[in-house]
């Protein structure tokens, strides 16, 4: 059976390759090799030469940079749309089309999932009803995110009128995808969750669309979870829907288009009321879907661990393969449904990081760190042996971790490993506690030496300083920036606040934290909360990024408390418009979710997380360490904005709460 299924996968890869290369329409006249002399001929014969024929004639030279051009007619799929000379090379645009992408990519991913073993489930199948509900959500998104889709599809129209075949075909395609999700995945519900580490490898993002295949999957299963409502679930659901009503009706500046970039498929491209409603529903259903798959799934640690290792290995492997050739890079991007193309070349970028296959070096660093930690647990705590292949996977993981250069992940990894090492090897409790105390003292002393060039007052104001530094004060011609500079240098935030608090270039959140920092009503025995955030920010090198967050985050009081809706980041981005088109995230999952859900729900979630951790405190439980490791890292990374990390975090919290030992 396995051989047969691998054959089906090979067949679907072949199908995609054939279609992408434009093989079915590669006949006709011979073409000339591309040069400055023949460039005009190529440019004037748009969508006439197939990619296959182009490659056959010109090869895979470094001179060509291949890119997909989604804004093409359907008959241009797999053909050369246009060639643009760029310095010493050529930008080759290959035509693609939303509908064909939907079809081909779904076939590939569904085929891969078909490899998972079928198992009987106790969950009742209400397929038709749920298929219709799921597909109607994602079909509606195609209409509500009209600017994004108009930008990507040449024949797009949000009007439901006869002749709008793009939209009707899209609806039908989504309906069929959900139908096959039900057909293929429902019977595999029991074991699906053990394969979640592969979400880091197969992103499931459709080319051309702000849509993720796996988001559809989790939304589909989310409906099933809602069929079994109990009291607590009902109350949470009612509260959530009240919040959704608030997000939908709250006053805000509306923006038709947000460039989703590396968050594609897991963020809204528009903040109109319907988009907010649909994305709020999607968020709610994703969480329910994850909970259902965990609850109904058969936890199999062996399998999960193996999948972590294999996924990690393939991520590094394909990251390396994609780094060598632009064409292979683009093919991998299409086949795996990545949010962002892999890094071309092996050079490190800012912060000496190499993200490779992943859209974020920070996020993938955390993932590699986790794989290494679980491997450590298996090898040294469970004292199991690895087979040869697993050692190879581990070597690749080490390489990926080293190149991702995520220092925070490395430090937390060392922290949890030290914790376990001492706990497992020193039986005498007093000696162990003395050692913990000794290490903590060393940590504090070394921290002091690292930070001793700064005073507490200096560090405490770090985030506020960066916030003012990055604000749009310089955009106002009447403001003398020399005077602002002098105030900043002297840390005179009181004068800054009093002078500029009524200008609309200073965000409400920056005003609030500045006010709190300089407030004279502090409780004397407690440190100022903004000073604590500032010191932490300086210590973990996040002062500038967090300062930028506060400079940009400009909510009303109600939005600050209750958020602007899940996946709605548009107002954070455009209300102050600081980022000049580039996607700069808040660099803390807490801040990211404050934008989405607001301060009150995020505080509740943090308290709930602490409650779960303390209630299930068990130094013999792997889940405890993993939640600790991930929580610390999420404080300074945006990982929760990425779908795989979101699923992973929820998975381990749930496992810890259920006290289901993964052993």
């Amino acid at each position, binding site marked *: 059976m396995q051989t047969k299924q691998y054959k089906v996968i090979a067949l679907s890869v072949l199908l995609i390759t054939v279609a992408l290369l434009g093989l079915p329409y590669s006949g006709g006249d011979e073409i000339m090799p591309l040069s400055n002399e023949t460039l005009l001929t190529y440019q004037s014969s748009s969508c006439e030469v197939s990619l296959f024929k182009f490659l056959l004639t010109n090869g895979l030279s470094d001179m060509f940079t291949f890119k997909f051009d989604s804004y093409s007619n359907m008959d241009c799929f797999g053909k050369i749309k246009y060639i643009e000379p760029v310095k010493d090379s050529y930008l080759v645009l290959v035509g693609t089309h939303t*509908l*064909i992408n939907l079809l081909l990519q779904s076939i590939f991913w569904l085929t891969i999932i078909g490899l998972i073993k079928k198992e009987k489930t106790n969950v009742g199948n209400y397929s038709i009803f749920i298929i219709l509900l799921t597909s109607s959500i994602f079909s509606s998104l195609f209409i509500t995110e009209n*600017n994004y889709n108009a930008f990507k599809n040449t024949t797009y129209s949000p009007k439901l009128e006869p002749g709008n075949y793009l939209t009707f*075909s899209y609806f039908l395609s989504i309906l069929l995808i959900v139908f096959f999700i039900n057909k293929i995945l429902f019977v595999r519900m029991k074991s699906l969750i053990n394969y979640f580490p592969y979400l880091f490898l197969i992103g499931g993002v459709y080319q051309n669309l702000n849509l993720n295949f796996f988001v559809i999957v989790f939304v589909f299963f989310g409906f099933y979870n809602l069929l079994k409502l109990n009291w607590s679930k009902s109350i949470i659901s009612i509260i959530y829907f009240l919040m959704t009503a608030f997000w939908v009706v709250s006053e805000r*500046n*509306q923006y*038709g*288009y947000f460039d989703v970039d590396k968050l594609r498929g897991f963020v809204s491209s528009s903040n109109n009321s319907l988009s907010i409603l649909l994305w709020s529903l999607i968020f709610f259903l994703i969480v329910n879907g994850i909970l259902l798959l965990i609850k109904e799934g058969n936890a199999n640690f062996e399998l999960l661990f193996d999948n972590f290792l294999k996924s990690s290995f393939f991520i590094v492997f394909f990251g390396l393969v994609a780094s060598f050739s632009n064409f292979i890079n683009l093919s991998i991007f299409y086949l795996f449904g990545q949010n962002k193309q892999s890094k071309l070349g092996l050079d490190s970028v800012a912060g000496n990081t190499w993200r490779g296959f992943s859209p974020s070096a920070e996020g993938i660093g955390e993932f590699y760190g986790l794989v290494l930690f679980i491997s450590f647990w298996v090898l040294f705590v469970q004292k199991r042996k690895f087979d040869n292949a697993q050692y190879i996977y581990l070597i690749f993981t080490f390489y990926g971790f080293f190149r991702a250069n995520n220092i925070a992940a490395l430090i937390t990894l060392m922290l949890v490993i030290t914790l376990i090492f001492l706990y497992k090897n020193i039986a005498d409790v007093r000696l162990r506690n003395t050692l913990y105390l000794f290490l903590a003292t060393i940590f504090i002393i070394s921290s002091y030496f690292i930070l001793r060039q700064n005073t507490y007052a200096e560090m405490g104001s770090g985030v506020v300083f960066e916030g003012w530094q990055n604000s749009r004060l310089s955009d106002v011609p009447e403001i003398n920036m020399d005077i602002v500079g002098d105030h900043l240098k002297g840390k005179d935030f009181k004068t800054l606040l009093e002078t500029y608090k009524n200008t609309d270039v200073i965000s409400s959140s920056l005003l609030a934290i500045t006010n709190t920092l300089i407030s004279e009503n502090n409780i004397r025995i407690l440190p100022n909360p903004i000073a604590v955030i500032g010191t932490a920010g300086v210590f973990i090198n996040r002062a500038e990024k967090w300062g930028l967050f506060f400079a940009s985050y400009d909510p009303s009081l109600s939005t600050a408390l209750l958020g602007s809706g899940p996946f709605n980041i548009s107002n954070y981005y455009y209300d102050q418009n600081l980022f000049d088109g580039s996607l700069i995230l808040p660099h803390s999952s807490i801040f990211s979710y404050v934008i989405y859900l607001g301060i009150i729900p995020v505080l509740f979630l943090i308290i709930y997380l602490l409650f779960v951790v303390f209630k299930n405190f068990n130094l013999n439980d792997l889940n405890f360490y993993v939640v600790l490791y991930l929580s610390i890292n999420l404080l300074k990374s945006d990982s929760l904005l990425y779908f795989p990390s979101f699923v992973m975090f929820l998975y381990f919290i749930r496992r810890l709460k259920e006290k289901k030992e993964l052993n």
Partner: protein
Amino acid sequence: MMATLFNIDFKIDKICGENNSLVTLSDVGNNPNFIFRNDPNFELITLYSADGGKINVNSWVECANYVSGGWTNGIFPTVNYESYFFYFLIFSSLTYSIISNIYKKYAD
């Protein structure tokens, strides 16, 4: 906060590029007597209509005016492949349901 809706027409941006002139589309409005003046800095663009019409535009505002009226910079495909795709999906779904029903009956 004021609620404003920025409904950007990406097609105009994509086809006509950035507006570097002082004239905007709202200046044209519904005025049938508006005269489009050639912009020497604007590179000529050829636009096509669904019924086979063709026109050369010489300024950004002229281009934007035609694009907002449904003209585009690519020749309209004579064949609507998306309709073929739609019928292909309908046909495949029907075939699949018939075959799977027969298969089920046969298996029973």
